[in-house]
């Protein structure tokens, strides 16, 4: 919620998804939503051919907002409706558990019908007649809000049988998780929805679009992704694709937390502002006049960026040829591709800021505690490695660091990433790898300090 006025035009938020969310008087009621043009896009969508909606979403260039940035239209295109004879399910991933991420809950708590409208359109486009919202267990009130919104929508025949006379049937149910991060991994989510332990499935063969919920074709999309669908129907794929930059279309909600003056969530066109502008202008700079030390740009699983780093980034010139340019951390545009080119990822949009007073070993130890607790424990490298890394870091923070620890941490994280069942393996090892690689001196200093204090205590 940037204070307008203080910001130049360029830095003013462009709210598409959160357009009404924080408007005074805007409520979760369906009447309020309808007054703001709600469910008009559903009417429009129901008059379209489902395949045409998929085509619009493809044309829009929309990429998933859940973390991986996978093109939504491509995902939807995986289901071949000419061959498929099984029911199709649509699942809304509202598990939002990635540390540093708090965007989906804004939508759910403040504008639930926007999500429902997006979901109904997406379900129609994918020919699903049953959809679920898998909501994080801790969001008790969010679940209640959604239940109420669903009842309202049912009462108005936006859900149910023969929706708005179109002949299309759909129902949506809320399913509450039991409080585990891994339930946000799409195949873990599916297992959990089936009533089992949220053990992610092996891929291949269990790609959701082929063998998803009850081994039927299933589309899993993030809350924010699904909301975008409504706007794509409204403006058309081509117009949507003009928002942002090529291959980085639409807006994104950035959740800023940590050592800035004004943490919060801010919605901008992809690539419209830089990381520096977000931190210094939008969020009012580093707190207490401190200096920036590090930023995690896309939720805690993304690799950390260190202040002062220069990145070599590929950029397309207007004539289509590529050029490589050098970029400072502050100059990175907030999009998908440039942040990926910096060696990290925009992930879930959770920007975590650390200032110069932060002890990076402590920060990493904190993160590693989360991953050690949240590993589902199904596969060996992640189960054993996540806990091991945390034990090493906890010992380092507690004054027991050893000279071999930094290298050991790198080795262990290297033995996890790329070798596990699900992307949690990367999620838990990338922070370790990047923290140690980029702040190695701090990790080594811990060992030196520990040795000094030991020889001191021996001398006494």
């Amino acid at each position, binding site marked *: 919620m940037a204070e307008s006025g203080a910001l130049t035009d360029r830095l003013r938020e462009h709210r598409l998804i959160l357009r009404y969310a924080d408007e005074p008087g805007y409520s979760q009621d369906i009447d309020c939503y309808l007054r703001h043009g709600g469910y008009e896009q559903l009417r429009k969508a129901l008059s379209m051919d489902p395949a045409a909606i998929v085509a619009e979403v493809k044309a829009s260039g929309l990429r998933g907002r859940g973390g991986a940035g996978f093109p939504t239209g491509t995902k939807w295109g995986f289901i071949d409706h000419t061959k498929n004879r099984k029911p199709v399910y649509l699942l809304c991933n509202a598990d939002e558990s990635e540390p540093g991420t708090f965007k989906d809950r804004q939508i759910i708590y403040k504008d639930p019908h926007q999500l429902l409208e997006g979901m109904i359109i997406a379900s129609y486009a994918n020919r699903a007649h049953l959809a679920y919202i898998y909501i994080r267990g801790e969001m008790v009130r969010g679940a209640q809000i959604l239940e109420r919104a669903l009842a309202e929508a049912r009462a108005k025949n936006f859900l149910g049988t023969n929706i708005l006379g179109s002949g299309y049937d759909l129902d949506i149910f809320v399913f509450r998780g039991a409080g585990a991060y891994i339930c946000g991994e799409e195949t873990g989510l599916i297992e959990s929805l089936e009533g089992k332990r949220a053990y992610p499935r092996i891929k*291949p063969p269990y790609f959701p679009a082929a063998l998803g919920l009850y081994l039927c074709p299933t589309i899993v999309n993030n809350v924010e992704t699904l909301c975008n669908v409504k706007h794509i129907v409204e403006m058309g794929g081509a117009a949507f694709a003009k928002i942002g930059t090529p291959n980085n279309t639409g807006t994104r909600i950035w959740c800023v937390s940590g050592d800035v003056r004004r943490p919060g969530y801010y919605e901008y066109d992809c690539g419209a502002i830089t990381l520096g502008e977000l931190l210094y202008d939008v969020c009012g700079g580093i707190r207490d006049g401190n200096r920036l030390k590090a930023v995690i740009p896309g939720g805690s699983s993304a690799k950390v960026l260190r202040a002062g780093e220069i990145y070599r980034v590929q950029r397309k010139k207007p004539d289509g040829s590529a050029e490589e340019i050098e970029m400072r951390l502050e100059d990175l545009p907030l999009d998908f591709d440039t942040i990926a080119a910096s060696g990290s990822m925009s992930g879930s949009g959770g920007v975590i800021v650390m200032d110069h007073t932060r002890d990076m070993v402590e920060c990493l130890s904190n993160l590693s505690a989360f991953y050690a607790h*949240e*590993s*589902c*424990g199904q596969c*060996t*490298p992640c189960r054993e490695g996540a806990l091991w890394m945390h034990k090493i870091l906890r010992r380092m923070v507690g004054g027991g660091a050893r000279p071999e620890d930094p290298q050991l941490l790198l080795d262990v994280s290297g033995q996890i990433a790329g*070798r596990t069942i699900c992307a949690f393996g990367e999620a838990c090892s990338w922070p370790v790898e990047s923290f140690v690689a980029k702040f190695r001196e701090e990790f080594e200093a811990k060992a030196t300090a520990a040795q000094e204090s030991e020889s001191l205590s021996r001398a006494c």
Partner: protein
Amino acid sequence: MALIKNPFDHDLTPADAPLVHVQLDGQWVEVPRGLNVIEVARRFGKLIPHYCYHPKLSIAGNCRMCLFEMGTPKLGPDRKPILDAEGRPVLQWMPRPQIACATTAFEGIGIRTNSPLVESCQEGVLEFLLLNHPLDCPICDQAGECKLQEYAFDYGKGRSRFGEEKVKKPKRVDIGPRILLDDERCILCTRCIRFARELAGEDCLGITERGGYNRLSVYPDKRFTSNYSLNTADICPVGALTTKDFRFRMRVWFLKETESICVDCATGCNVTVGSREGIVYRLTPRVNEAVNSHWMCDQGRLGFHPIHSKHRVLEPGRRADGRLFPGEWPLLLRQVAEALRKLDPSSLALLVSARMTNEELFLVRQLRDLLQGDGEIFTEVVPRKGKADGLLRSDDLNPNSRGARILGIGTDGERLPELRKGIEEGKIRALFCLHEDAAGAGVPEALLSGLVLLVWQGILADRSSEIAHWVLPGASFAEKNGTMVNRAGRLQRIQQAIPTPGRAKEDIRILRGLILALGGEDFGQSGPEVFAKMAARIPAFQGLSWVGVGNQGVTLPGEVQ
């Protein structure tokens, strides 16, 4: 096809599966399309180490021990594979290792089982698995046949970098009547869970807790009671599941292994008998895809114990005035032969066991022919009926009913009631019990004691042996060589693991002694010798040899149902 239906058969492909070309560590080979990559490697003598993969269970892909480097044909602009000078597809290698257990062969797949990346993956997984492992090897029953030990030796680092406190988990958890769990040793491969669910049909095991604290648990208020529970101890790659029966009884490397079959029912599951110095310590299932696949039931597995029972008859002897006097075999056999010869053949009955081998039954038949002349000696077997369980267990608890039928011994027990009647009516006045208890088969003891001659041959004392005039201690299945025909008409070998105890004697030798004493032919004194002579005379066994039957058996053409 095995007599049990496996939920999966990753190691088998349909006979009509087309062959595809696969590059295995640089060599192009042909394998059926769809064959699991672990099995592809295995067929060419290479081991892709694995823990969670089992050819007969669903794929879990959780241990990550089987990571390999996978190549796919590089496609040209025309979307067709680019070929090298030899006409082979040029491969491109995926940067990420893949799990072999969830990959199947397709045309042009490249498999690297020992590249630096693969070795680094294997070393990493092993290091992880050992971090919190209790390393109980000195007192662990699995030691010596533990995949953690084996792979640590073959693929491990050889030193530990773990300087933290280990995770503590429950030990000695009683999860079922026959099985114990040590959670600290468990590597969470979920093989046992999948076995219980998919094969035993008893979904009762699962994983509780989170992450590094995960542990195997039995469902609340449930126990793993399946009659197949002990198979989990076999497929558990480590010493996490141990059988209460074998636990702490013997270090496995001291066990002599003898390939045999289970004689607890007509299925004839193939087993390995583990013995040491005259004592059998355990039976474990031995793979035979025509019979039991990888499995056996708990009852059969534990069924060997009576052979070491204190009721085992160890001395041959003659009863006089109610007392049994031990005697020397040659003398006793001559005396028994003499007593049998003196009888009117029609007054003699043979009560024979369908638990005896074909060779023994063949000799019984020779003995009968010698004795009966033109008359007829009543001969019958004792039926044993149980309940088939739809898995392995047969409703016929005699392991060789079909052999008895082939050899013309009895009528599956249909005429058994005539035995009692014959004795009651005084027509039958002498009885030779071979591994059967006449009292147990329905002849009251009072009638038995009235017989002029009662000869008993067997292993465990019973009511008949208590009153028999002659007691001839024979051999248990672990103490002899022979063949049996299972319920599917498959001829299989049992093989001697231990010597007969005390002065007990292999039944073939007892019967041979009697036959020779009666002036009959010498059919040899070992299972293989008798088998050769039998095969020459009995049409069903025509053309078969002891060696040819092998350790997997052969299906008798005339016996397939």
